[in-house]
């Protein structure tokens, strides 16, 4: 909803984040799965349709009412200083705003800059309504995006659980216990909601929800979609070196050819059971 208009300063070849940071550019980098806002080459904010915006995180967590959020938007939105307004008017502490802002920024950047999402254009001079809160170096954003992809792959190397509707299943008795946070995710796993929608409804960052989803899938509490193999080794891609993260859109990874993929339904997948047993054995020796 807040994505700047795509007309205007679009050029033939879209510049990457590193390039824009090097030339200290200011504006909005439009990517397939989100937008990254820069000021003087530093990342000041990011948004993605996959991740809940800072307004969702603040209001769902009960820190702000929808009314006080609307008031802040109305009074400071047009001038691009909503963040400053929230702190100056005593609605949030500086630390609270920063923490929530960084949470939203890195969450959206993970999808906007992650695997399967490339730059589409740069709108020079575009600024976000939040205004400057705490700028982050482009290198730090890219490093964290990479780390997040690796973390998910290490938890359970099936990226399709990130985008498919979440199906709860009854695990065997040896499955690890579910944490209260994960219980809230499981309660919404109705076979219709996707992880992105669950994150939005819970008012949690999307990446945090993916961590819960992957852990729950690894433990057998959530079905792992069939015809999906473990993530292939990361293939080098220009702009996103060695990034094994999830595809931000479903269908980015082609299904395995017939006859080569697992043939049973997801939850009886011998491949997955083997992996689960292997992981249990490895954990037992730690």
């Amino acid at each position, binding site marked *: 909803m807040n994505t700047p208009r795509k007309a205007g300063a679009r050029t033939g070849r879209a510049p990457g984040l590193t390039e824009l940071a090097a030339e200290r550019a200011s504006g909005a980098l439009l990517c397939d799965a989100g937008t990254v806002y820069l000021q003087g080459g530093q990342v000041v904010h990011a948004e993605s349709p996959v991740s809940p915006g800072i307004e969702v995180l603040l209001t769902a967590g009960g820190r702000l009412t929808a009314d006080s959020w609307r008031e802040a938007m109305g009074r400071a939105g047009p001038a691009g200083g909503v963040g400053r307004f929230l702190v100056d008017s005593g609605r949030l502490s500086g*630390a609270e705003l920063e*923490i929530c802002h960084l949470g939203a920024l*890195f969450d959206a950047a993970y999808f906007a800059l992650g695997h399967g999402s490339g730059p589409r254009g740069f709108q020079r001079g575009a600024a976000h309504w939040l205004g400057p809160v705490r700028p982050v170096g482009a290198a730090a954003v890219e490093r964290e995006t990479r780390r997040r992809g690796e973390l998910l792959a290490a938890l359970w190397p099936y990226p399709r659980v990130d985008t498919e509707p979440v199906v709860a299943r009854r695990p065997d008795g040896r499955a690890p216990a579910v944490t209260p946070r994960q219980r809230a995710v499981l309660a919404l796993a109705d076979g219709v909601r996707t992880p992105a929608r669950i994150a939005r409804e819970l008012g949690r960052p999307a990446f945090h929800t993916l961590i819960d989803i992957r852990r729950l899938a690894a433990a057998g509490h959530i079905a792992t979609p069939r015809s999906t193999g473990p993530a292939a080794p990361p293939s080098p891609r220009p702009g996103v070196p060695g990034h094994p993260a999830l595809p931000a859109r479903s269908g980015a990874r082609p299904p395995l050819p017939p006859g080569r993929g697992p043939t049973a339904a997801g939850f009886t997948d011998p491949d997955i059971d083997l992996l689960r047993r292997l992981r249990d054995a490895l954990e037992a020796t730690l």
Partner: protein
Amino acid sequence: MANTQTALKEAMTSIEGCLGAALVDYTSGMALGTVGGGNDLDLTVAAAGNTDVVRAKVRTMEQLGLQDAIEDILITLGSQYHLIRLLKSRGSQGLFLYLALDKNRANLAMARHQLRRIEAGLEV
């Protein structure tokens, strides 16, 4: 009203023997801010790794059926103390403060006391 960086700097200057401090998002393992550290102590790596420490303890408490919350976790090395203090967050995000202290210079009781004060200043 402090922002995260001033709170961390205060930890660094007011806590005797403090080698480094980080404010860490518990779920993602990302350091939201760091001070100190250096070549001997990569605080972003420490942040990510110590989320596993917290998670393991939370899980153990659940298995034991302990209906309680962790205030802090102390890890004693030969030459350092590592102190993890979980923040009682008003929002939905779980955070902890991570502190590395020089064992010879640090006063553990004082460090714990200061950490509580810094947590209050963060107002999260």
